[in-house]
């Protein structure tokens, strides 16, 4: 008889967790001695507005969220990812991870393959890029190939990507010169409040699961303050497991550059935390975490980076809903579920990503929809409840409209404690959602502060 119990956490993607953070200041000084130039990290701008900051990718690489990726991709690796969604090592990986720089800055730095570049963030030394290769890209081409086209990917891509798509804009706005090579953080940033208590890089997440005795864990992807529909989804999806429901429910928020009208990340992480502080899920079964990543809204492609992140954290199951990490109607609304139930051959998946070579141990839990049904008297699952005309479907934009009009959402939509978390940040930012002012300020503030670290003499101007 096959063993049905799940006794261990899944292995990291690629077999080994990447940890490229130097915590010894003496070692950091030695490494900085080998650098030949300094570069201040700049945000990626689209029409003057920040849409990405490469520091988030450096954090996610060095703390192991993106294992086995260790840095900015070489030309051959980029080609392999765009063509097959595989690293050169054969492991599945969906997105180009690149350190881009303008021609002007590149000339000024005077660096090349074999040189080490010290990267500064908020005026302080932050990380080192060991330059292995320098090459050029055509950003528009990278953007198109990243997300696919209706011609090449007819299974799921409905219309060509354009400038209304934030993720597409991110790749279109990259600088043309790529410095490829490994990243190493040499000055560990301090996460700011309130993010610091939700910072669970893969190593720490796995330690926490072991401490709690969890072997079956399910991930909930979020970019929202949770309404009662999200809560029902989390609780019900967690009935998957082995001989009993999952030990743990892990919320992993994607924190990074966002869009106008989204909730601020501060309210998102604290809103999820309030679900356990106010007792709707016991805190010993619930963990709120986040990953630094400027969301690309790549629906099926994005679901693959979610699988990378969460398997690395030690998570065994992943909820995938309709319109997963989607924006607009570029992809089929079920694209992610198609990928995770039968595969998308044109993207390199003849079978689902858990059934291909170099694929995942994490298992999908493809979920339809929850709605509020007064007749069922519950947050009903769409495959159960047939009370059409009676149930009310959730709509994020409808709820934002309520808040915008100053109507307090009823407890059927928001737990009152969770709504009050929204109000707390509304008081602080003067606005319940991301507006232009918030987005601009947050990209200056970022999620981290850096301790002061002296530059080596040869790098001071």
């Amino acid at each position, binding site marked *: 008889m096959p063993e049905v119990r799940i006794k261990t956490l899944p292995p990291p993607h690629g077999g080994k967790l990447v940890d490229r953070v130097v915590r010894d200041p003496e070692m950091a000084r030695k490494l900085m001695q080998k650098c030949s130039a300094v570069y201040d990290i700049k945000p990626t701008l689209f029409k003057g507005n920040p849409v990405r900051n490469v520091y988030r990718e450096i954090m996610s690489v060095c703390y192991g969220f993106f294992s086995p990726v260790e840095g900015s991709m070489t030309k051959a690796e980029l080609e392999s990812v765009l063509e097959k969604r595989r690293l050169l090592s054969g492991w599945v990986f969906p997105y180009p991870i690149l350190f881009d720089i303008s021609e002007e800055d590149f000339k000024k730095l005077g660096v090349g393959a074999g040189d080490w570049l010290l990267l500064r963030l908020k005026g302080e030394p932050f990380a080192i890029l060991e330059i292995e290769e320098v090459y050029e890209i055509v950003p528009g081409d990278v953007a198109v190939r990243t997300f696919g086209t209706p011609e090449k990917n007819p299974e799921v891509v409905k219309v060509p990507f354009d400038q209304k798509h934030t993720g597409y804009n991110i790749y279109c706005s990259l600088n043309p010169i790529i410095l490829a090579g490994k990243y190493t953080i040499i000055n560990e940033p301090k*996460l700011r409040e309130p993010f*610091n*208590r*939700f*910072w669970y890089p893969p190593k*720490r997440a796995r330690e926490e699961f072991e401490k709690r005795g969890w072997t079956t864990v399910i991930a909930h992807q979020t970019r929202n303050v949770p309404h009662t529909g999200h809560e029902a989804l989390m609780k019900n999806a967690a009935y998957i497991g082995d001989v009993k429901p999952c030990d743990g429910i892990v919320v992993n928020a994607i924190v990074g550059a966002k869009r*106008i*009208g989204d909730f601020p990340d501060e309210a998102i992480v*604290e809103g999820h*935390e*309030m679900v*356990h*502080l*106010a007792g709707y899920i016991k*805190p010993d079964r619930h*963990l*709120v975490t986040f990953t630094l990543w400027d969301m690309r809204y790549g629906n099926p492609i994005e679901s693959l980076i979610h699988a990378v992140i969460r398997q690395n954290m030690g998570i065994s199951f992943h909820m995938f809903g309709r*319109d997963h990490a989607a924006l607009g109607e570029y992809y089929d*609304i079920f694209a992610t579920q198609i990928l995770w139930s039968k595969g998308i051959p044109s993207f390199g998946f003849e079978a689902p990503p858990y059934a291909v070579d170099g694929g995942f141990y994490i298992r999908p839990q493809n979920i339809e929809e929850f709605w*509020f049904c*007064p007749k069922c008297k519950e947050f009903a699952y769409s495959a159960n409840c047939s009370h059409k005309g009676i149930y*009310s*479907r959730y*709509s*994020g*934009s*409808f709820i*934002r*409209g*309520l808040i*915008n*009009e*100053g*109507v*307090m959402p*009823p*407890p*059927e*939509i928001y737990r009152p*404690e969770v709504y*009050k*978390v929204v*109000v*707390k940040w*509304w*008081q602080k930012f*003067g*606005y*319940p959602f991301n*507006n*232009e*002012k918030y987005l601009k300020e947050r990209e200056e503030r970022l999620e981290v502060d850096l301790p002061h670290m002296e530059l080596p003499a040869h790098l001071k101007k």
Partner: protein
Amino acid sequence: MAKFLGVIIDEKRMAAIKGTPLEEKVESIFGGALRRLVIEVPDDLGQKVIDQFTKARFDARGFIEETPAAFKRAIFKRIAEMKELSAAVVEKVLAEDLEKVKEEAAKEDKELPVPDIDISDVLELQKNPVQKPA
């Protein structure tokens, strides 16, 4: 497919339509937790509304969402005045109230008055978080 525009009916708005035929058109959603009036509009008129406001969009149910609160206020005012739930209400707002709506909407994008509710209970809960920084 037709598109829809929903207007939330709170106590104040309910009072304004009391005794009119509109009263029985009010539908309850989320088990009676909220009430609303719904105007059905043809596709092209729906699109015309969307085109007026940068954030506005159709949601998965075909509802026009994320329009400014000022637009919803103007729609309700015209509903109450014309005592009907027809596309004509939306056309009237687009024809006559748009300039004022856009003016108010620009302010809305910068600041929204914080609801006057007591949040001390959640601040208290947050004083003892279960999760602590490493």
